[in-house]
């Protein structure tokens, strides 16, 4: 091992340069049009960023541009999900991770409230049953 | 060999195709620009007069004899043959409607020298018996009698005698060892003998050693006009023989376009050897005399004059500046035509057209181009340096009822010559 360590192996120093490839600007225009539609017609738009051919640095540029707004939510269902409003109200950044901590979806939603934050009908029904069962248990003498 | 046959014609076409012809045909893209340079098209609007189209028979021979694909097509029977009917139809295009003026060769974007090819195509027309009857008989007269107009030395001798008597100047004849031997055109002898007198006066003043040759005075060459090198050679040979016999240093071409071409540019190639003498056009000689101060002029005219450039002398002969220099010797009010010098428009009668009665109506029609060009200048006198142009223009102006005096440049110089009395 020592011999290997002393062998001079030149390592090129590489400082990654972030180039602007111009792919974020059209996307921002699309977001702007979607926001206008939301304001006027109330139409909800979802953009799947996995389908956008980002170059290196493009994604960070977009996220930096959108910034952070007032609301931020974390969801724990089959891995984490982060849903946060950007500095532009009505524009939400949604990221889903799987249980192994890898991002499986990256979206921008232009909506008043991302649907995933709402309690779901099926879960409500299940919750109601569970709650009723719990109350039944309590009435039967169990301590609340 | 006797008589003209299609076979001899085809062989002649085949002989005439050379590398320039092959390069020209390979390059033509049928863009039609040559039509716009040709007065036979511009004045009639008939596309059949498009210069390059006039070469269809020669083009077919080139294609079928000298290109791989053409030979193949000919073998498979797909090629359009050159027939006697085709050549008959093309007589009008190769003779009546082409004066060999060479203007088309100046505009062709790919650089085709169309008049070079028309001259060559006529060889095939002659050998196949498709040359116009009038030009044919002129050629016969030239060979048999000595001049296309049937004029013999007797006539010249009479003119010489008359001029000598009237002017009192001796005209040297058959003087061995003279420097210059001027040639004359039949037209000058018959229609414009003033030219001979003008020469005599100018040469006397400039102390030029010169002589006429009784065996070789005729400069015109119907072999060139009809397009037969064999006939042209015979006629040129007479001049060469005369000049060599008199051991002159220089032969002077007269005010005649095609005569200059035949003796200056084609002559040595026809006889197959360089001349032992120089050939100059009379305007070149006069310009030399002017430049060396041997002739001077006086009483310059302020009449508005313009100059018609004879195609064979100017565009195709290269005598471009001399006429301008000489005009400045005689006139203070010289105006150029809009297209002049190498861009000049033809009078419509060169290349044998004026000798061809079939072409007469067409020639008068297309003369409109020249007439308009002259009128545009507002000149009251027209000068030129070609007896044929002069006759054709006179006839044309008469047809269009335009009154305008015409004069030869040499005579004009003689008129203003400062002479030691």
């Amino acid at each position: 091992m020592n011999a290997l360590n002393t062998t001079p192996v030149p390592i090129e120093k590489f400082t990654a340069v972030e180039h602007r490839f111009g792919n974020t600007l059209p996307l921002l225009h699309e977001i702007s049009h979607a926001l206008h539609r939301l304001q006027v017609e109330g139409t909800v738009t979802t953009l799947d960023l996995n389908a956008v051919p980002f170059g290196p640095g493009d994604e960070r540029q977009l996220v930096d541009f959108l910034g952070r707004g007032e609301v931020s939510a974390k969801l724990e269902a089959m891995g984490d999900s982060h849903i946060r409003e950007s500095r532009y109200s009505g524009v939400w950044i949604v990221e889903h991770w799987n249980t192994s901590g890898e991002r499986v979806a990256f979206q921008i939603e232009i909506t008043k409230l991302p649907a995933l934050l709402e309690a779901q009908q099926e879960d409500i029904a299940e919750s109601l049953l569970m709650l009723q069962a719990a109350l039944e248990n309590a009435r039967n003498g169990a301590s609340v | 060999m006797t008589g003209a046959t299609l076979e001899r014609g085809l062989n002649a076409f085949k002989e005439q195709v050379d590398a320039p012809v092959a390069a020209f045909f390979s390059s033509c893209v049928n863009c039609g620009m040559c039509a716009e340079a040709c007065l036979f098209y511009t004045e009639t609007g008939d596309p059949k007069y498009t210069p390059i189209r006039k070469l269809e028979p020669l083009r077919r021979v080139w294609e079928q004899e000298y290109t791989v694909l053409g030979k193949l097509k000919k073998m498979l029977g797909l090629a359009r043959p050159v027939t006697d009917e085709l050549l008959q139809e093309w007589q009008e295009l190769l003779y009546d409607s082409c004066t060999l003026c060479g203007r088309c060769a100046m505009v062709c974007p790919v650089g085709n020298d169309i008049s070079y090819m028309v001259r060559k195509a006529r060889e095939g027309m002659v050998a196949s018996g498709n040359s116009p009857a009038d030009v044919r008989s002129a050629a016969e007269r030239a060979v048999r009698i000595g001049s296309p107009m049937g004029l013999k030395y007797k006539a010249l001798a009479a003119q010489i005698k008359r001029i000598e008597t009237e002017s009192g100047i001796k005209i040297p004849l058959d003087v061995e060892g003279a420097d210059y031997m001027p040639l004359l055109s039949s037209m000058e002898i018959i229609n414009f003998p003033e030219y001979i007198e003008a020469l005599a006066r100018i040469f006397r003043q400039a102390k030029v050693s010169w002589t006429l040759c009784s065996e070789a005075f005729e400069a015109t060459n119907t072999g060139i006009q009809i397009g037969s090198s064999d006939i042209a050679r015979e006629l040129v040979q007479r001049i060469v023989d005369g000049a060599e016999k008199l051991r002159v240093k220089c032969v002077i071409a007269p005010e005649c376009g095609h005569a200059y071409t035949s003796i200056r540019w084609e002559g040595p190639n026809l006889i197959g050897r360089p001349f032992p003498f120089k050939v100059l056009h009379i305007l070149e000689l006069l310009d030399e005399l002017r430049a060396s101060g041997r002739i001077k002029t006086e009483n310059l005219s302020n009449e508005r004059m313009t100059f018609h450039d004879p195609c064979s002398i100017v565009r195709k002969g290269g005598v471009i500046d001399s006429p301008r220099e000489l005009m400045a010797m005689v006139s203070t009010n010289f105006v150029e035509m809009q297209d002049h010098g190498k861009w000049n428009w033809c009078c419509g009668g060169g290349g044998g057209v004026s000798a061809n009665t079939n072409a007469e109506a067409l020639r008068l029609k297309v003369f409109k181009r020249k007439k308009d060009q002259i009128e545009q200048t507002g000149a009251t006198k027209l000068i030129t340096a070609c007896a044929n142009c002069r006759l054709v223009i006179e006839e044309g102006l008469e047809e269009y009822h335009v009154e305008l005096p015409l004069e030869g440049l040499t005579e004009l110089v003689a008129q203003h010559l400062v002479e030691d009395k």
Partner: protein
Amino acid sequence: MNESMDFLLWTRGTAFDVSVAIFIVGMLIRLFEIVSLGRGRDLAAPRGTEFLPGIRTILSRTLPYGGTFKRQPLTVIAGYLFHIGLLVSLLLFIPHIELFRETFGFGWPGLPNPIVDAAAVLGITGLLAALWNRLTNPVMKMLSDSEDYLVWILTFLPLLTGYLAYHRMINPYPLAMGLHILSIELLLVLFPFTKLMHTFTLFLARWYNGAMSGRRGVES
């Protein structure tokens, strides 16, 4: 199966080799055919020289004479448009330059694609105008034979297919590119045997014209 890729590979492979070979062999045969006919030595005493006037005419005939330009502006303008469009697209498009570099071992700088694209559009426009001119101008109409129209098609197709391939207007792309290459191959194969030869022989023709005139002391 896989038609368009097979087609593309065929056009980039066998067909390209064959057509380039035919082009070169044909060109050489044609040039030899022309030059072998010779030109008689001119025995007349020259007034001027041949070489420089010949070169001068090679260059000067690229510009039209004013008088004829005024009479036939469409012929001149359409001619310029399509020749420039064609030459720019052919010689200054970077993918084409790479092909030349591979063939000859050297290349040259190209132009940005939008400029080449514009040149191609001009070229296509020029060719359409030239066709219209050929069909309507009485002189050209009379002169034109089937070869003129064949040559027009052979010239038009590479520009058109190149334009369509670049803008990916034919799908899939291998088909578009294959068609483009095929159109070039057609052009190459027929080039030596049609008046497309003028591309090369015009230099000869102009030189002969200029030299013969130059000898007589005339700038042609």
